[in-house]
């Protein structure tokens, strides 16, 4: 209700601003005229002359010129006294009374949200403890660790959160600190490796591979290390090695391991025939449902990063094929088709690459 009161008050003030001059009786106004300006210019000539800034003949010439303007201005000065037209003043008053509120309401109503209260932050933080955003919490933990950097538990908590927020470089640093202050463990080593390869856009770099190998040295059965070492092999082009590693991993895996589906689809990707027939689209779609959760999000993140990287640099035929394959695995056939079209466009200038691409796409069942 107060809001409408404020609106009304403002409207009245605006109307008053229009009506005020209309109501005043017209008296002789303070107003300038050209005559005043020219008189002033004449005075200035006198001043310059007496200060010795100009010489007498120049001053005389200028005086004549200005006087001529002065006369002309005095002659053209409106001789008629200001009139007052009551009819038009009434019209203006009506315009103010009716037009102004009409325009104001007519424009404001479709645009404004008069029902919505203000939500200043201070009020909201008092309102609920939930208001603390994840980012705020992270910053608080970071500030705390800045002061107590040796607190291993803090790094342990922080690192996965940073990774989930996409701050991979910071996550790498946090995992390193966690390793330093909490001691060695296969799990931490492989987490670090994962963060490093995430920071590298999904590529298992030499550095990351070293971490996974250290993890496997600590625990030969660490699933994450084994999975990523397989991925490294695949990225190096050693598909059989990758398939062997993943097959071994699946053999040892408990039946309800949440990452099973991921490894299976990876295996399918490298064509790990033999024990595992290539999965049909339906099975992959089914396995996609099974693999809901972190792993799925991780894969998706990697795929997205790969897609953006390729958007910037489209020369990488292997990369394109990997992207198309990933979309097929995730059951997103539209995206796969889209990506293969993009790929053809990106390498269209290079016949050798185009040939490689077309061959690769044909093996994926998208040729044509």
């Amino acid at each position, binding site marked *: 209700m107060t809001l409408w009161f404020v609106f009304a008050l403002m409207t009245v003030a605006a109307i008053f601003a229009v009506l005020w*001059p209309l109501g005043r009786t017209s008296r002789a106004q303070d*107003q300038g005229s050209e005559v*005043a300006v*020219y008189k002033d210019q004449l005075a200035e000539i006198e001043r310059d002359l007496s200060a010795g800034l100009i010489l007498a003949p120049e001053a005389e010439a200028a005086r004549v010129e200005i006087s001529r303007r002065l006369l002309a201005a005095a002659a053209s000065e409106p001789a008629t006294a200001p009139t007052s037209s009551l009819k*038009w003043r009434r019209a203006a008053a009506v315009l103010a009374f009716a037009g102004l509120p009409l325009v104001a309401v007519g424009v404001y109503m479709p645009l404004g949200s008069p029902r919505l209260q203000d939500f200043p932050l201070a009020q909201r933080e008092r309102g609920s403890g939930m208001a603390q*955003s994840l980012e705020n919490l992270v*910053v608080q933990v970071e500030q705390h660790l800045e002061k107590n950097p040796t607190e291993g538990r803090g790094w342990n908590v922080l690192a996965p959160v940073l990774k989930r927020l996409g701050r991979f470089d910071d996550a790498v640093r946090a995992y390193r600190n966690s390793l330093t202050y909490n001691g060695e463990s296969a799990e931490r080593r492989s987490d670090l490796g994962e963060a490093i390869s995430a920071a590298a856009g999904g590529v298992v770099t030499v550095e990351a591979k070293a971490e996974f190998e250290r993890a496997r040295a600590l625990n030969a059965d660490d699933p994450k290390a084994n999975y990523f070492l397989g991925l490294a092999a695949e990225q190096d082009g050693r598909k059989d090695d990758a398939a062997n590693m993943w097959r071994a991993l699946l053999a040892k895996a408990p039946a309800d391991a949440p990452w099973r589906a991921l490894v299976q689809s990876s295996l399918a990707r490298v064509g790990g025939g033999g024990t595992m027939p290539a999965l049909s689209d339906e099975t992959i779609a089914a396995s996609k449902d099974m693999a809901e959760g972190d792993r799925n999000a991780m894969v998706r993140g990697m795929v997205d990063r790969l897609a953006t990287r390729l958007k910037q640099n489209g020369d990488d035929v292997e990369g394109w094929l990997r992207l198309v394959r990933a979309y097929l695995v995730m059951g997103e056939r539209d995206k796969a088709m889209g990506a293969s079209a993009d790929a053809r466009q990106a390498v269209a200038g290079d016949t050798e690459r185009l040939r490689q691409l077309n061959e690769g796409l044909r093996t994926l069942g998208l040729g044509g």
Partner: protein
Amino acid sequence: MIAESGHYALVLALGLALIQSIVPLVGARLRDAALMNVARSTALAQLLFVGVSFVALVMLHVNSDFSVANVYENSHSMKPLLYKITGVWGNHEGSMLLWVSILALFGGLVASFGNNLPLSLRAHVLAVQAWIASAFYLFILMTSNPFLRIVNPPIEGRDLNPVLQDIGLAVHPPMLYLGYVGFSISFSFAVAALMEGRIDAAWARWVRPWTLVAWIFLTLGIAMGSYWAYYELGWGGWWFWDPVENASLMPWLAGTALLHSALVMEKRNALKVWTILLSILTFSLSLLGTFLVRSGVITSVHAFATDPTRGVFILLILCLFIGGSLSLFAGRATSLKQGGLFAPISREGALVLNNLLLTVACAVVLFGTLYPLAMEMLADFKMSVGAPFYNLTFAPLFALLLLAVPFGPMLAWKRGDLLGVTQRLLAAGVAGLVVVAITWAWVRGGSALAPLAIGLGVFVIAGAVTDLVERTGLVRLPFATVLHRARGLPRSAWGTAFAHAGLGVALIGIVCETTWNSEYIATMKPNDVAHVAGYDLKLDGLFQRQGPNYREMIAEFNVSREGEAIRVMTPSKRSFTTRGSSTTEAALLTRGASQLYISLGDATEGAIAVRIYYKPLVLLIWWGPVLMAFGGVLSLSDRRLRVGAPKPARAKQRLQPAE
């Protein structure tokens, strides 16, 4: 309630502007003082309501009210208070609100201080001002409304572009807008004069203070913007001939020409048509600048968001105002009476030359700005017009202009004595040549033209001094008389001298910086030492620090010269989590007018890429414009401009002792 009140106030301002654009014109036609005075009260009320609206938006930003879309998109609860406030105009919607606020401010100023204007002229000026205001209120409300709300407000905002979280943003846009928008007043005066059909010497005097105010702010605004680019963008450059920079330079060039041609009109009643045309063109260029920057035609730090409807809307406004005013001009210009005559060699002649050079320079910049855009749009062909183009075109024009600058103020009105002036400028010319010789002998390397350009700068400064010496009679008259004459000298003469000297100062800075700056780029580890221009910079170490809404990596450099420690410099790199971007904060060490400049590149395992520059006399580049603006302020404070109708008595009293 704050949000909605601000929104409603803006709508009311639109309503008032609509009334202000009609009623005073009717009043002027009927010669009804009350109807004409409606312009005044509505202009003041408009200022009040836009002010309320602007203050409301500032409060929303300060309170971090994320139910307002504009605040959510451009603010963050943990941003320092200063940047919460400056963030108001660090985005498209808010900056447009600032634009109209300043427009209303100028309208309010004319309404309150325009007592020396004839009533009908004031009514016309304010009505034209209201047309512009109405167009921009509509633009804001329809396409870029800063008060739109979000029903389910998010918890945290998306933060402001980190590059804009800087003190430079607090000052640069308001200054620049005061300049841009200030020229709307001379535009309104020109259109009003055309509508009234009365254009004469008095008009020029009435317009002059407004043009001068706009010009002062535009000068400072451009200088600030350039300094901001210099220290915040981390490349050590201060002018990039970027379309956005050009957009502000063009009105400045046209405005400077206007300032000078209005002088001829005021003194000699000549160049009337040209002055009116320049008033229209200057504001048109301001509008064009707004269009280029705001429509998303150009992507840059300034083009906060791109939205085609906005571009089309501004283009419509542009066509309406430029086309409308130019057709009015074409219709009325022929009926203007011929003014005073003058010989080619005279003060008027010099000012015509000034106008010629400035407008051609402006045309060159306009071409360089629009040509690549046109090519890209029509021929789908990307190109960029940069420093080489302007060095070949803009630089010679300006060299010519600077060569003529000392002559102008010394020539007499109507017909001047070029030979006499040349003789009087002999000392300044000799000073310039001596400096050329010294520079040539002293420095090695760099362009052969550089010493000549420095000599030109010295000539311009010495010429400004000579002018003052001549006018006060220093050297040839007794000291008491000199003092008396110096006091009697109009402030505008002092202003001219300062502004012209400022040009010379800026030129020297530009030449020294571009010719003799030394650069050192390397990857440094802690305890490495870099040697740049006689300074030793030792990298002491790298540290991490947490800022309010960013983390920063600081590199600490110990700067010494010949074994003597000078200061510690701490350039840093800030990374902003919310926007996922980072900025480089360069460290500057000022020695006289020269600066050492360090900015950081990428860090790799314990080492960091650094760029170190030594920039000799770089600060002169900005001292020059400050001097020019100071000259403008002096000129503005001249009593001639303040004298309105009611004050002849004082002037007479002043006259007495002189006789």
